[in-house]
């Protein structure tokens, strides 16, 4: 019992540490892509930047505005932090390296991703600030249009695997990774996943230039830190799900499974960061338009064709 508890505690701690470390890695990579240096002052090549950030966040005044709805104001960052962290529980790293083997694995991811929007809604509404509210409204509209095909785009994979279980899904890709037969599903899931974790270019809810940071404008100190790390956690979860659903999970020659899993994950995360460096943020209505007019039909067609071919066999 105690051992089990410790095991889970350590795993969570490691995941959160890597989530925080990702902020440093992202800044270094962005520097690399944009011909500049990232943080390189603190420690060896800036490796202690994370600790400097932690000190700054912990000692900043954690102010709850008097005009806010304080209960929801406090709850919002907790939801943001927890919701996608919980998905880590059912991600299999290897054929037998996982915390829990859920039969509804991928549904659990969809549930939690749908819940995570509440954090933004609560944060934006309870801050009692018009920029925050605008950010929240944008987040809701974006979620409404992307959640639809977030689910639909992986249905092709599920049809092929005949299971919601993540391990079964990976095992169904033993001979060919799903990225090839399910290419359009992969593309739309990538877009929806980006929109899900509010990464650039889909960072509408927090766009600094227009909304001055959007939904977390009133947050400071560790509450802001939870939003911040929560975003990186959701990025890790999304890339893990992409790896499992489309990139063949732990399959790969020579190396042990979890190394392959980790490598594919890292490739995904680096690609996310590359997208951030490369693409501009589209206008608000363009994003909705793109979601409904282009991505949704593609996913539906993909779903129909997959079902057709599965029926043929």
């Amino acid at each position, binding site marked *: 019992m105690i051992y089990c508890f410790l095991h889970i505690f350590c795993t969570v701690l490691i995941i959160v540490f890597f989530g925080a470390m990702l902020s440093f890695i992202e800044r270094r990579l962005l520097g690399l892509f944009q*011909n500049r*240096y990232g943080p390189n002052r603190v420690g060896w090549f800036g490796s202690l930047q994370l600790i400097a950030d932690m000190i700054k966040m912990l000692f900043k005044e954690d102010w709850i505005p008097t005009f806010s709805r304080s209960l929801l104001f406090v709850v919002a960052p907790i939801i943001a932090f927890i919701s996608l962290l919980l998905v880590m529980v059912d991600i299999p790293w290897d054929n037998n390296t996982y915390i829990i083997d859920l039969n509804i694995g991928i549904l659990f991811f969809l549930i939690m991703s749908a819940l995570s929007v509440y954090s933004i809604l609560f944060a934006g509404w309870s801050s009692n600030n018009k920029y925050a509210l605008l950010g929240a409204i944008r987040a809701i509209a974006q979620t409404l249009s992307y959640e639809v095909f977030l689910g639909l785009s992986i249905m092709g994979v599920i049809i092929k695997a005949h299971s919601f279980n993540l391990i079964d899904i990976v095992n169904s890709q033993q001979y060919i990774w799903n990225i090839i037969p399910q290419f359009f599903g992969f593309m739309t899931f990538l877009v929806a996943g980006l929109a899900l974790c509010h990464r650039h270019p889909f960072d509408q809810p927090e766009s600094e230039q227009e909304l001055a940071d959007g939904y977390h404008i009133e947050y400071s100190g560790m509450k802001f830190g939870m939003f911040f790390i929560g975003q990186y956690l959701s990025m890790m979860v999304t890339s893990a799900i992409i790896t499992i659903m489309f990139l063949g999970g732990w399959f790969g020659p020579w190396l042990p499974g979890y190394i392959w899993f980790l490598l594919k994950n890292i490739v995904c995360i680096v690609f996310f960061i590359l997208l951030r460096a490369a693409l501009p943020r589209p206008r608000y209505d363009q994003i909705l338009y793109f979601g409904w007019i282009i991505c949704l039909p593609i996913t539906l067609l993909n779903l129909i064709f997959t079902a057709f071919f599965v029926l043929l066999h």
Partner: protein
Amino acid sequence: MYIKSIIFGIITQLRSIFITLKHAFQDRETILYPENSIYLAPRYRGRIVLTKDPDGNNRCVACNLCSVVCPVSCISLQKTQDQSGRWFPKFFKINFSRCIFCGLCEEACPTTAIQLTPDFELSDFNRQDLVYNKKNLSISGTGKYHNYNFYQQSGVFITKRKKNNIHATPINIKDLLP
């Protein structure tokens, strides 16, 4: 047409992603500042100095124009006179923690006493230390204008003090020079 524009858009996006990826293998352009020094153009607007004219006298005549024009009101000075009736500032303070280095004071100054130099390393641990007074601001040289001497240009010579009657040669009003 519609499909064509979609495909064209996707290709341009992929192209920009690829170009950004290529940048990862190029040299970095950042100047690592404290290790490598920076070239600043002579007209760069940094720390403010009070200069002296070619004869080594203070240029400032305490006319208050710089203080008036300053958008953030960070210059304060007080006028006083010497024996011959020449004005000079009794104290002259610039609060560099407020200065926005706009250069308007330099534009306004009729005697080119106040000048902005390309020195920008002004950081300090204590906010009070950023209030510079006359002693900190004055330099012994002429700054950017080596030969300019206000009293030669304007033609005002102060010989000796006469009450309310300073001897002055008239200004050539056709001349465009200051």
